[in-house]
């Protein structure tokens, strides 16, 4: 099916359409009327380029990170986003500048989308001075304006996101906080505590479950009594979205942000997606699922391929242009990789800074080390 679409594009020559109407995947609604989101959307060539390029950069960045991890240049935790790119790219394209995001530890894609250059992300992974957290945070603790990380404790980011939403409402700044968590975190008590308060106080929060089918090594059927994560908000309206289709994600995002911005209270969304790598780099990802399953998704539901085929089918972008963007992304990431590998490590004195905002003294590992900071 996909191959036929590709050939069709090649045969018809260069793209000539500047925009096209593209069908979206089916949504599912909970405590909401059916058909709230239209069944199709307009995609312009510029939008398509932007969406595809960003997904390609993230895909390439994560692949390179995995090889750097195998070379032991990246240490500790490394949770890769490959396969889930459509979510962060699609949502970001629907967001307004005053909106905020908070997510869990699978955060590299989001960090890039919230404004950190690939060098900033990758140098943070390799623990260098120029990393976005000066090398002190690592894979799970990256931040940017209106982006509150990068959080290591499963589920802890959900109440934090509720708090950011609270601040938006308190300040009346028309902002919404998008709070993401996985299918594994969806059973955490603090998630439900946050649902309760968000609904009570009508906080402008969108709770999004990135359901990639597995919480580490445990499939959703073995972890949750109810796997319809978009209904878990119970009294909070919910929406199920195909998380592999960047346009469906984008349209759902636009609708949801408008809903919350108008003061109607929170929403819960489930974005069905898939991760190609294991849970983290220490997990090969094959002990709890078959290689065939992974390959099947790569062939039929890959976000980049889906967008590519739609662009070619509707004549918005040509095959050459898309391949050119792949190459461009590769070049950018190769440069970033080089920077990340060669940048200097932080100064030893940085070890003791940033504990407090006001001046303080710190004890080192033995009594000979006493550092005064900020004096």
């Amino acid at each position, binding site marked *: 099916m996909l191959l036929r679409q590709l050939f069709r594009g090649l045969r018809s020559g260069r793209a000539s359409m500047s925009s096209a109407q593209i069908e979206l995947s089916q949504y599912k609604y909970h405590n909401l009327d059916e058909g709230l989101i239209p069944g199709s959307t307009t995609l312009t060539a510029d939008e398509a380029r932007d969406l595809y390029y960003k997904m390609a950069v993230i895909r390439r960045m994560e692949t390179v990170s995995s090889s750097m991890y195998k070379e032991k240049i990246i240490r500790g935790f490394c949770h890769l986003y490959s396969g889930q790119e459509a979510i962060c790219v699609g949502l970001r394209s629907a967001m307004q500048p005053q909106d905020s995001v908070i997510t869990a530890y699978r955060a590299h894609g989001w960090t890039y989308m919230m404004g950190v250059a690939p060098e900033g992300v990758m140098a943070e992974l390799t623990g260098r001075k120029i990393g976005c957290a000066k090398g002190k*945070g690592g894979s799970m603790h990256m931040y940017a304006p209106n982006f509150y990380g990068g959080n290591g404790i499963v589920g802890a980011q959900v109440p934090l996101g509720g*708090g950011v939403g609270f601040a938006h409402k308190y300040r009346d700044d028309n902002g919404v906080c998008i709070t993401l968590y996985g299918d594994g975190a969806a059973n955490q008590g603090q998630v439900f505590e946050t649902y309760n*308060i968000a609904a009570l106080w009508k906080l402008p929060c969108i709770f999004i479950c990135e359901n990639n089918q597995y919480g580490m090594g445990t499939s959703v059927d073995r972890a949750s009594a109810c796997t319809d994560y978009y209904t878990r908000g119970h009294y909070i309206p919910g929406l199920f979205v195909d998380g592999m289709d960047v346009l469906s994600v984008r349209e759902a995002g636009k609708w949801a942000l408008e809903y919350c911005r108008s003061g109607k209270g929170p929403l819960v969304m489930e974005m069905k997606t898939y991760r190609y790598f294991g849970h983290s780099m220490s997990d090969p990802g094959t002990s709890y699922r078959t290689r065939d399953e992974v390959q099947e998704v790569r062939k039929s539901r890959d976000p980049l391929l889906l967008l590519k085929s739609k662009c070619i089918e509707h004549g918005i972008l040509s095959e050459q242009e898309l391949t050119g963007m792949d190459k461009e992304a590769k070049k950018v990431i190769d440069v970033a990789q080089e920077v990340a590998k060669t940048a200097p490590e932080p100064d030893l004195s940085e070890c003791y800074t940033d504990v407090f*905002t006001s001046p303080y003294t710190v004890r080192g590992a033995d*009594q000979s080390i006493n550092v005064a900071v900020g004096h």
Partner: protein
Amino acid sequence: MAAEYGHLLDMFRVKYDGGNTSSSSSSVASTHRTTVNDVEGCLEGNPHEPYSIALGAKHTARARVELRPCAEKESSEVRVNNVLLSEHFDYIQDREQVLFPLSVTKMYDSFHITATVQGGGRSSQSNAVRLALARAMVPFLHESLVEKLRLAGLLTRDPRRRERNKIAQHGARRKKQIMQAMRMLAPKLANSSASLATLRVSSKRCMASKHMTIRDALNSAIDEEIARDERVFLLGEEVAQYDGAYKVTKNLHKTYGDKRVIDTPITEMGFAGIAVGAAFAGLRPICEFMTFNFSLQAIDQILNSAAKSHYMSAGFVTCPIVFRGPNGMAAGVAAQHSVCYGAYYSHCPGLKVIAPYSGEDYRGLIKSAIRDDDPVVFLENELAYGNPTDISEEAQSHDFLLPIGKAHVEREGSDVTIVSFSKQVGLCLEAAELLKQELGVNAEVVNLRTLRPMDSDTIFNSVKKTNHLLTVEGGWPQSGVGAEIIARVSESDAFDYLDAPPMRVTQADIPVPYAANLERITQPQVENIVRSVKHMLNIEVNPNIRNYAH
């Protein structure tokens, strides 16, 4: 002039250069008869043994006071109608009233006081004696001290016929609860005449100081901070419409409404996380835990989200949040509700941990905590809320701030350093007074005020002065605050100044039981402190203490 009165010479307003040279101390060679309308007392006697007489009155009570200066190193005696002060006046409040002029001028051990009083009830009598005492002191005092007495209203007869009952009204009688609390303390002070140390929760009592409870001090401080900065808001269980589980946030919701004072459901992890997220986004939340025992539900958000984010983000994220609530012992609430979390929270870098003691501590430190850009854990104490306290004029200022990370020496001494925090500081002051009265031991009591960052320098300087160290805390001994203090002292040059191994007094190393007699012995008491000090100073070596000091 006799050498033993030399220390009072400077204070004599009237100079003697002749006159009656009789050496008899009992002869009364008065120049005129004192009447109740004399504004100042009359200095009588001879230069070697001066004394003064003055009269005082209130309602129908009439008092006469005779003052003789004490010799140096002599301790003063106060007698009313030929019995000890404590025997004539049962209530501590009355005794405090009587000795107030001494308090204002800081002249506790300066005079022998002989008073007679008739008529009126206990309140009028104590007032009358107070007035007579103040007037009798005048001839002995320098002008500046007389002015202090005058400004405190102690030289003016109280003309009122009827007292008002509302607290915080000018000149009102104190609330029943406070009197009850003071009555509870009375037995301990039965034999001490001029001992006010254990009553005073603030070291200053000057002319414009306000008398209130610690609860009021805290309430007013939070009120002022919410008014001052629109980013400050308060959330917690029952803080709004219920006026606070312990009434600390009384009237705040009425004043500021739903936006600034918010009731939460009983979901600590959820609302603490929401508060931290709001702090990340630039607001300044005050997150109340009904008690810190429930903060364990939220401890992940406090330690992993609030405390570490500034570091993990290399300074990009700040978290200006205050977690506050009662900590440590209450009364009869048993094991799950009686734990002190000082050691738990002060263990973690990135958090500031404060444990106030006096009303001024509460006021100044909560303000500093709210204005601080770092996450602060503010450990209060339920049993302290009702305690009376004096807030000096300086501390009533809306910008009264106490520095975080500075300890305060509550009582100066020379023989042993007792370091403590929160409610136990009161216990240490009580013990210090007892040690002074019964054993002549001068204990220096250090109130830490902040657990992290801890003020090591004040502790070291004190230990270098006294050569002995005792720590007192409401938490358990293992990995506790006392252990930390002693480790720091042994790592410093103050170690060389120790004449005995340092010791700890802590909560007993068990979950707290319910039965009152059992609960009592799990808590640090005066007897634990006195026993430890006696062993440390070799006054009474205890064979059960196996630190081989002796």
